[in-house]
Every structure is written in C-alpha cells, then in structure tokens.
C-alpha cells in the first residue's frame, strides 16, 4: 500500500490536484482511498459529484465515537474511489488539530485505512501537531508539496519542508519528501523558479500543471478533469503526475533542506523581470 500526502498553502489547489490525481490513479485499476484532512471538508466533492458527504467528526459529534461504522464515513465516488472527509469544529472554536488525531484513531480502529493508494489531502498550514498527523506514525511515506511561483506559496511549502526535516530525525520515521508539484498561477518564469526551489530544498519538481480553463469548467460541472474532459491535455497532465508518483519510491536517506528566509527572497527576486 502506498500512502501519500499533499500539503501546501491554502487555496493553492491541493484538493483539485488530489481529486484529479486520485481519478487518474483509479484509471489504472487501483483501489484508491482519498482522505480530506481539512475542517472545510471540500477535498472529495468533485469525486462525489458535488455531494457534501458527512464528515467523520460530524458523526463523532452526533453519535459518539463508539457507535460509528465504516459505511457511515467511507463513501464511494467516481470510478470506485473511496472518499472520507475528516471535518472539524466550526470556525473559531474548539481544536481542529485534535480533531485530525481523533479521526485517524477512529479510521485505524475501524480498519478503514486500506487500498492500493491512500491520498491524504491536508490543510494548508501545519499550524499544530494535529495537522502533522498524516506525516507521523507511519501514515504517509511521501509528502508532495503543492505550490505555485507566488512567494507566499513557496514560503508555506518551505515551512512544511521544515516539518518533514524535523520528523526525519526521529527513529522509525517513514515520512519523506516525494517532490514538488507546481500548480501554476501564471507567474513569470514560474517553471524555472519552482524547479530551482525544488532542487534547493534537495527535492525535485514532479509536475508542472499549467493554468487551464478546463479545470474551472469541470469544477462547476462538479467533476474532476479526468471525468469531465478525459481527452483534454490537462487530463493527461494529471495522468502523468499519477504515473510519476507510482514510480516514486520513498527514499528515507534523502532529507529535505529547508531554505532560509533571505535565500528564499533572493531566489524569488532572481526570476522577477524588472
């Protein structure tokens, strides 16, 4: 079983990328489980054709953690992909991080964590220990950083890099940095910039996803690009990403090296045309 996690700045396109990645993987006749780990619970919506599935934490709140069965929290979406949303408290109250930990404990207890590939789609900023959960305890072996050429997106990616580097010092750690995915925001010299960023943090660029209107069109049709426009160029880009990820093997000896703030600024400056 391969377990991967996508992290990156809020709004960068993690959920869109995750859903299309899962859809592309499912075309390879693989059994896929996608878990949305964000209180916004919108990770799997395109796979579920716009349906908001009940979240694990909604059910915990309503029924208590001892009265929940697997089929109440795991929903089958596009092409047999199994979808789970962790959910969380309402904004401004409680502790969402603890919610992620509770979700993982429950999924573990219900033996719901199986399949050929598990895709964890995680909240943008690793604000506390709870959101580092998918990286810990041997869940995800590979983390993919989703970023664009925007400075703040690179900054967020670099921060997540720090978390992975810190975890890699622990014994029995299984989490590695699988690579960087550039979800383009049409910044100048974006490919070169993100490519160099990936190298500088001792990783690699695994995909450059150009900005395409078809993504938005598919979304308003409540579908992934793979489903809505299977013959589009964009669909092939997601398929290539899926292929590359399946070929990747976690290398525990390759530890990411986060950049210093001034280095990151200098790097961004280098690719801005004046």
């Amino acid at each position, binding site marked *: 079983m391969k377990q991967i996690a996508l992290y990156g700045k809020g709004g960068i396109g993690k959920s869109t990328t995750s859903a299309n990645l899962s859809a592309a993987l499912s075309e390879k006749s693989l059994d896929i489980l996608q878990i949305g780990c964000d209180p916004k619970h919108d990770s799997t919506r395109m796979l579920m054709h716009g349906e908001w599935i009940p979240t694990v934490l909604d059910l915990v709140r309503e029924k208590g953690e001892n009265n929940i069965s697997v089929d109440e929290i795991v929903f089958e979406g596009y092409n047999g992909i199994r979808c789970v949303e962790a959910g969380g408290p309402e904004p401004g109250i409680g*502790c969402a991080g603890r919610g992620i930990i509770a979700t993982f404990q429950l999924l573990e207890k219900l033996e719901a964590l199986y399949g050929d590939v598990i895709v964890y789609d995680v909240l943008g900023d690793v604000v506390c220990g709870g959101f580092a959960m998918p990286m810990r305890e041997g869940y995800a072996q590979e983390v993919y950083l989703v970023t664009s050429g925007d400075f703040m997106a690179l900054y967020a990616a670099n921060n997540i890099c720090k978390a992975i580097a810190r975890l890699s010092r622990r014994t029995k750690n299984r989490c590695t940095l699988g690579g960087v995915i550039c979800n383009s925001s049409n910044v100048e010299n974006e490919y070169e910039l993100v490519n160099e960023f990936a190298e500088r943090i001792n990783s690699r660029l695994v995909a450059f996803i150009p900005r395409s209107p078809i993504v938005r069109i598919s979304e308003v049709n409540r579908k992934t690009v793979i489903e809505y426009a299977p013959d589009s160029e964009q669909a092939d880009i997601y398929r290539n990403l899926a292929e590359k990820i399946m070929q990747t093997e976690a290398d525990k000896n390759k530890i990411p090296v986060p950049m210093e703030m001034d280095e990151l600024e200098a790097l961004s400056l280098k690719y801005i045309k004046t």
Partner: protein
Amino acid sequence: MQEVCPLTTETDSLIAERRESIVTSGKHKTSISCTSDSLAGSVSQRACVFCGARVVLNPVTDAVHLVHGPIGCASYTYDIRGSLSSGTETYRKSFSTDMKERDVIFGGEKKLAACIDELVEKYNPPAIFVYSTCVVGMIGDDIVAVCREASQAYDIDVIPVESSGFISGNKVVGYRAAGEALYKLITPKDGEFVDKTRKLNFLGEYNLGGEKWVVERYLKEMGIEINVAMTGDATVEALKKSSGSFLNLVQCTGSMHWLANRMEEDFSIPYIDINFFGADNTAESLRKIAEFYDDPEITARTEALINREIAAVREVNEKYRKKLAGKRAAIYVGGAFKAFAIIRQLQDLGMEIVLTGTQTGKKEEYERMGRLLSEGTVIIDDANPAEIEKFLIEKKVDVMAGGVKERFLAYKLGVGFIDHNHDRKDGLIGFEGAVRFIREVHATTCSPVWKYLREERGGTE
C-alpha cells in the same frame, strides 16, 4: 545574613540550578532566590496554578465551584480543604464539565453553558465560580463570555477564574486569580450600596477544623464582630458586604495581600497583618486589633481574655519543654506566615530549627525568617523531596512540621511529623490550638517508634 549553600561532594543530590534557592542563615548577606517558577525536573512540592486558585476559593460554602476541564482536575482537588461550614455544604461537592475528546475538538463552551444551566436549576446557588484548566486555555474557550451571559440570564454572579495551569510554574499565580475572582464578587455593582459597619473581615483564614470560629469567639468576647472570613465558612451574601467593613485582618499573606491592598485602595479599608498560630502570636494579634479599635473597654476585655488563656498554654509549654528542649526541628510549609508561627512555637519549646522553607515565600519574608533563626539553619525556597531528604538526614532532624507531601518522607526517615496542612480536620489556631500543637509535637517527637527505624538506617542519634 545568609550565604548560598555550597555544593559539597560529588554525590550531592542538589541540582546545580537550585543552589541559589537554598541558603544558610548566618552573617553573610546573600539573599535567597525565590518567587520564581519551579525548575523543570526538580519535582517541586508546589501544586499547579488551578489548584492554587481552588484552595483559596473553595471554602466559600454556598457557591458552586465548577471546574471547566477534564475530570481529573476536579477529582484531584475534590474537597481539598478541611474547611468547615456553619450552613450549606455546596462547596464540598466537586462539579466538573467533564470534558472529553469531543469537547476538546468542538469546543467546550456549549457544555459549560449547559452545566451552568443545570447547576442553577438544581442548586440555585447565589454564585458560581468557573475555573479554567489547561485544556480550556489551550483550545481558547471563551469562559468570560459564557459566564457573562449566564450572569445576565440568571441574575447571579457567575465568575470566571483564569487558572490554566500552564500560565505559570508557581501556584501563587492561582492565588492571584482567586483574589481577582473575589474582588469581582465583592465589588458593589452599579446602583448597589453596602452599609458601613464596625465589623472586620478576616482575610487568609480558611476555617480548617473550625479555626475561624475559635478566633470569632475571642473577638466576640472582646466586643468585635467578624463580617466574613476569606474564605473560611464564607457565604456569598457576607462576602458582598465585605466592602463596608471597618478593618481587614490578613493572616495568610501569600494568598490575600493583593486583595487587601485593592480593598484599601477602592473601599478605604485599612488592613493589618495578624497571626493566630501560637499563644504569643495570638496574644499579640488580639492586642493589635484592640489597639486599632482604640476603645478602653475592648482593651480591658482583651487583656482579661489573654491573661486567662495564656496561663493554660504556659503551663502545658513548661511541662513539655523539659522533654523537647534541644530537639532538632524542620519546617516546610506553603506560606511564610505559617513558617513564622511554627518557628516561634518550636523555639518556645526550647527546640532548635535546623531546616526551614516555604513554597511561596517572598524575599522580605525570607529576610525576616533569617532574623528569627540561629546561625546555620538551612532555608530552602520551593524545595523538592530530594533536598528535604538530604537535609533531614544531614541535619539529624528529630521532628518535621509540614504538609501532606512531606509526611511520608519524614516517617520513612524515622523523623517525627506534625501535620500543618490545609486539609487538617482539627484546628491549631489560637490558645487551644497552641496546646494541641504542643501535645502533637511531643507525641510524635518522643515516640519510641523512631529509634527502631533510625537503628535500621544506621542511626543518626
């Protein structure tokens, strides 16, 4: 006057960073390091911030004390004091919101509000204290807003106590949180008026085993009434009248000086420090109070009372002094006022104080303590069990006065022990308390059992 305790051998059990919190009384003037956070790894004898707040407030008898947090916080501090009540016993129940993982994730505000609703319906209390614990502070439940809403809805005082444990490594921060909660309760609200009286408030008195009542009896004989003690056997109604009192007595200075100062500023009530532990302290305190009232009749009655009572204590003192003179004593208690009192009482019995200290003493209190002691006495701030053990052995201590956490250490080392803790069920205050204290000191110090234990240990005799 004092010097830093030198590190002796390599097998020394002292932690290096703790050296400046351990001094020896004497000619040199090095002041003790105190009032700081406990050192990590040192296993302080102090309790947490929340616990500090709860010991101060819990004796308010008719209030509901609601601990907002996981059940452990409430159960480990359940009925924490030996405080007695002349009326309702609501305070002895331990109420908790019993936060579970679900409440942590989704926030505990609704559950807290529901608990308050239920408690109001069931007990109809005049006030509710809502204590914040660690997890509540972590997840940011807005207990202030919940309390404000409940206060308005039920027209009673629902008072938040900001006592999350992690806000400090010193439980006196909890005393302060309790002081602020009391201050909120006693401050008259807009449009409220409190009558001025000749009564006094007795701050830092917790009515352990009825101790407040003993002093109340003395004062009554003198012609002075207590409005309310803070917080022993206090009712919410009496507390709310406290801003009209004539005088504040402060006994436990650590927990109540802040509030006494606020009351002096805001309500123009002066305060005096008194101490009713030990016969001489009691006599001096009563005279101080009489002097403040400046009434010849009160003075005459006070002197008559002291003359009558002190003779009985002197007699007991003489009797046991013969057996106790020259014995070596250790004292480790929470606050300095208690240490002062015990030092004096044991010295009156001819005993030598070789080790002392407190959990929460302040610099000036340690200076005063140094002046009471003979040269060479070890003084420890915020001691840990290893330090107490080391000095109990090194200083060949015969008897120790302390709290519940020191008791078994003393017993295991074959050292007599006098319980001076806040969960005592029989009082040590006033003249009769002094007699009880002397008898207890004798019984434990001269118990034949210790010689067997000390022989086993190789003997310190």
